[in-house]
């Protein structure tokens, strides 16, 4: 417990560094591009338009309000894949700094995931555009959306810490993870309805895939105008906390050895 308080104190002490690192990532992302932050909104929109064209013309998708369905899934999934991918290299990529000064190592992983999170918040602008164009009427349950985003953020933070510490010892993780992300994308009902899948696979995804929890929570609010199912909320929060605990534990357990391997 004492240890925990001490860690929180350290976290507070380095909040300015965290803030600096996050703002660095965001500033540098679009530096020297004409449209700048607009790209955060434009990029997901363009991807969505392409996917809508592909799926409604070629595969004859019959999901109601497909654009809305798609962009919700796409936004949440992009955040997950981007933040975890950046987290993997957050320790190895900052080797120079870690060898020269004493800075708590988790700062780098947390700041990467956080800057991706901020970027995702910008890209919610794309969602608003799609909602307006598709005449989706807002409802009171929208107030629950921040909770969903928080759940996903905590989940990504935990997963990111787990991957970051692992890749210090095995750089291979970085490459394996690309394949994992691709598989994960197809196993998540991002651009197809979950009902399309065979029974067993569907059951697996419904019980085990955290991205399914988050996407479905979001869609139930926006498309059905209802509060997300209690099961989804519980599972989404549970898996987020569990992942955070596992990730933090693994990270703290190995962090003193990082310096020998970076």
């Amino acid at each position, binding site marked *: 417990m004492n240890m925990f308080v001490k860690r929180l104190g350290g976290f507070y*002490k*380095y909040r*300015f*560094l965290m*803030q*600096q*690192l996050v703002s*660095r990532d965001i*500033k*540098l992302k679009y*530096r020297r591009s004409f449209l700048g932050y607009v790209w955060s909104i434009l990029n997901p929109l363009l991807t969505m338009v392409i996917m809508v064209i592909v799926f409604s013309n070629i595969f004859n998708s019959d999901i109601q309000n497909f654009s809305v369905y798609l962009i919700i899934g796409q936004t949440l999934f992009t955040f997950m894949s981007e933040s975890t991918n950046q987290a993997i290299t957050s320790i190895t990529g900052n080797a*120079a*700094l*870690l*060898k*020269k*000064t*004493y*800075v708590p190592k988790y700062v780098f992983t947390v700041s990467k995931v956080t800057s991706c999170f901020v970027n995702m918040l910008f890209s919610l602008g794309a969602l608003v555009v799609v909602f307006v164009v598709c005449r989706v009427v807002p409802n009171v349950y929208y107030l629950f959306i921040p909770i969903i985003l928080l759940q996903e953020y905590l989940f990504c933070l935990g997963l990111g810490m787990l991957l970051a510490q692992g890749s210090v*010892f*095995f*750089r*291979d993780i970085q490459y394996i993870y690309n394949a994992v992300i691709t598989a994960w994308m197809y196993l998540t009902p991002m651009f197809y309805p979950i009902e399309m899948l065979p029974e067993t696979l569907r059951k697996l995804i419904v019980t085990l895939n955290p991205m399914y929890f988050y996407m479905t929570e979001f869609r139930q609010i926006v498309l059905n105008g209802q509060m997300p199912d209690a099961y989804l909320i519980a599972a989404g929060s549970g898996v987020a906390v569990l992942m955070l605990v596992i990730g933090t534990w693994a990270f703290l357990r190995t962090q*003193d050895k990082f*310096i*020998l*391997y970076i």
Partner: protein
Amino acid sequence: MTVDQDYIIKVTNATVRFNMASERIDNLKEYFVKLVKHELMFQEFLAVQDVSFEVKRGEAWGVVGTNGSGKSTLLKLICGILKPYRGTVDVRGNIAPLIELGAGFDGELTAIENIYLNGAVLGYSKEFMDNQFDEIVEFAELKDFMDMPIKNYSSGMSARLGFAVATIVRPEILIIDEVLAVGDYAFQEKCQERMHQMLEGGTTLLYVSHSIETVRALCDHALWLNRGKMMMKGNADEVCDAYMNSFNV
């Protein structure tokens, strides 16, 4: 055992173990091959072996030794970057580590942004950096280049900025690892002067250098390392003499 409250840094039987690069395992295939062959125990390399010394408040210690003798490793141990494999390191006081100037600089950011970033890396708050900003710019003498990305700076210019940021506080312990070699004569003089000021103000100094003359001039104590082992510690002049004599044999 009597409790000695006097010291500010106490290193007791510290040993630092490194994994030799040749034995480094950083992919899974290699890991399993090694696991099967029972070669997973890495070949250890002790960069610092069984070093003990105590530094009292206000002392200035020079660390001398040939390349690869563990001087920088010892400093990193004291900064907390490395953890001792055996033994203990006890530090009482805040440290300003100058292992490398501008360690937190990002080439794409402008000098202004880098001053804040580097300040944050060193653990200073935003308000503090706001207050010190003008002094930093003035000391570095780089007023006209503040909006330029650091990647376009010369090494001397970024060293100026790094030293200016790192020494704005008066830390209780200042650690310097031969970083003042870059920079022109006038700036080196300026840095030496600031270091003298700090010493007079009661700062404890740990100084690594190959310039024996500077060590003699700046430090009152010295520590001589050779291949990770401590050869001698004590009065700066005596240690420096012994160290220099070792080359004449």
